[in-house]
């Protein structure tokens, strides 16, 4: 194996770029939580707060041509992968200009242009899909890599084991990312996983794996880049576990009463955005004012995203049957709830043949 630096020396411009991206996730999610409490956003809503370094580091490892599948905690990935923030917010608002045209919502962000193929609300559902996408790449001798993000709890589901097994058997260019934020909803990793060092589970499938500090954007980027480029060059799957924390509850509505103050304080002490801010200042990369300017800039982007979402119209009801099938098919039901299956036809056609009305 070629020798490789454990950790590359970060370029100041690059670091500032990552800081800006992490702040975008932070401010977007804070604004999303606000919009949710204002009932502008419906359904379930899971935030990336506390996972900003992980999100940004992972996305930095992908090339444009690569594919990404994620779970339902997907807003940050969408923003950094390159979806338009206004269209992401419009999707959360359930509007016509949303990335999924208002059909998916928070958990189902999808944009074929940036090759982020969902956003999946069923835990573990994206794993076989990503494995199959990698199979398609391999089938066509492509050099794209598929990244498949999941949470820590997903490593307990059957689809995890089935997918890892197939990925190794078939030499697929897929990188599985376990974002270990140490909690399912309220269930800890130790309560749910017989092997709580989750990256070790890959060894059952002879898959290389590693664990990295998810609060360190450079460490995440380097580890993910190694995995992605190895998958690309050697057509081998990889599992990377990032360890970070969740600054809020499982979803916006969860007050996280199951966590002690000490636990919350510990997570806050490792806040990746605040940490990077302090590092940038203490390392002389940027001054407090310059970082505040970045923050103001990001705030403007988020404000514009909200304005775009607010202005975007609700999807037309006439489009309700547009996406059931890609290939049109006869006898496809297009009945609204209050409508009869066989609306009365004009004339006397639907009347009793023996006792016609009005006879």
């Amino acid at each position, binding site marked *: 194996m070629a020798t490789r630096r454990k950790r590359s020396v970060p370029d100041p411009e690059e670091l500032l770029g990552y800081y800006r991206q992490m702040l975008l996730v932070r401010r977007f999610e804070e604004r999303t939580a606000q919009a949710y409490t204002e009932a502008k956003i419906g359904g379930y809503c899971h935030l990336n707060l506390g996972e900003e370094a992980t999100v940004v580091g992972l996305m930095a490892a992908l090339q444009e041509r690569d*594919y990404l*599948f994620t779970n339902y905690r997907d807003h940050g990935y969408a923003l950094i992968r390159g979806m338009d923030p206004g269209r992401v917010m419009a999707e959360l608002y359930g509007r016509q200009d*949303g*990335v*999924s*045209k*208002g*059909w*998916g919502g928070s958990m*189902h962000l*999808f*944009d*074929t242009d940036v090759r982020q*193929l*969902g*956003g*999946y609300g*069923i835990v573990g*559902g994206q*794993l*076989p*899909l*990503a*494995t*199959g*996408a*990698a*199979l*398609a*790449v391999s*089938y066509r001798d492509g050099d794209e890599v598929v990244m498949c993000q999941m949470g820590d709890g997903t490593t307990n589901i*059957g*689809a995890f084991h*089935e*997918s890892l*097994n*197939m990925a190794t*058997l*078939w030499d697929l260019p897929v990188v599985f990312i376990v974002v270990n934020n140490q909690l399912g909803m309220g269930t800890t990793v130790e309560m749910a996983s017989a092997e709580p060092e989750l990256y070790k589970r890959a060894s059952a499938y002879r898959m290389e794996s590693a664990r990295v500090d998810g609060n360190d954007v450079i460490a995440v980027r380097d580890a993910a880049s190694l995995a992605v480029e190895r998958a690309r060059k050697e057509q081998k799957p990889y599992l990377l576990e990032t360890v970070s924390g969740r600054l809020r509850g499982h979803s916006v509505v969860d007050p996280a009463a199951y966590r002690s103050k000490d636990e919350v304080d510990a997570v806050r002490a490792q806040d990746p955005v605040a940490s990077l801010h302090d590092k940038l200042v203490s390392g002389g990369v940027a001054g407090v004012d310059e970082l505040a300017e970045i923050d103001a800039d990001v705030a403007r982007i988020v404000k514009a995203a909200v304005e775009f979402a607010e202005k975007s119209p609700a999807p037309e009801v006439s489009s309700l049957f*547009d*996406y*059931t*099938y*890609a*290939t049109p*098919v*006869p*006898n*496809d*039901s297009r009945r609204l709830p209050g409508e*009869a*299956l*066989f609306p009365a036809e004009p004339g006397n056609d*639907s*009347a*009793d*043949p*023996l006792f016609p009305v009005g006879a």
Partner: protein
Amino acid sequence: MAVMSYRQALHDTLRAEMLRDPDVFLMGEEIGRFEGSYKITAGLLDEFGPKRVRDTPIAEEGFTGAAVGAAMLGLRPVVEIMTINFSLLALDQITNHAAKIYGMFGGQRSVPMVIRTPGGGGQQLAATHSQNVELFYAFTPGLKVVAPSSPADAKALLLASIRDDDPVLFLENLALYNTKGEVPDGDEPAEIGRAAVTREGTDITLVAYSRMANVALQVAEKLASEEGISAEVVDLRSLRPLDRPTIIESVKKTSCAVVLEDDWLTYGIGAEVAASISDGAFDWLDAPVRRVAMAEVPLPYAKSLELAALPSAADVVTAVHQTLDAVGRRSVGAH
């Protein structure tokens, strides 16, 4: 036109589609080295190699989902699930993913895949291997479900399914694999969503699909030759979409109907057909729509119990007699 078995028609169609389109490939348990549990894929591994005839681990959820993912990138996987009973292990990938991806993401990526799987009891396979759960899939918008009853339909519907851009559950039947029939040459696909009137008649409509569509034809011939009763047979062929207009047209002609199904009666396909007839031909009906369906038990192993639980041709004849008697039409003979 050649006479061949249902199995041969499936095999030849898979082979022809693989020759026609390099994006078509097969995956499933034991389909390559073992040549398929029911030998539909015999010889294809040798001809096309392991890339296009992919043996999978025993992991229905995993490999079905992998096919969905491959289809999202534009390939056309044809998955074999050994029997429809095992499709329950892939239910999440079929109903939550294959069926949803086109709609839930606003039509950005379609899922052009086929899941071939046989149903059918009556082989002394006991309760877990004798279910007919196509209903679960027919219930789900986003999926298409087809159920050919003849070698000709097996070919035409498989062509249509492979070329369709949506996920299609292609229902085969263990009891049909060895049945023979004429199969047209060429490669004309059927239209998914259209039923077929496979026998014209005037006294009563028999509605069925898959194996039971053949039972319906046999019963209709027997009723005609022995009793002069003219039964029309509607072979549904497509369970989603359901071709209600063809059913309604037939009932408007005959004024009564019996639905045959291999699955359980309660909440079954027959219930949907009966409700549709009630909606679309209420004023034409002379008798309640009868359903001939399986007894509501987990299917037993013992042959005596299995036979008692499964619907038979004799059960259909009884239902037809009772329906015609109720409206006083059998006693006066065929009209």
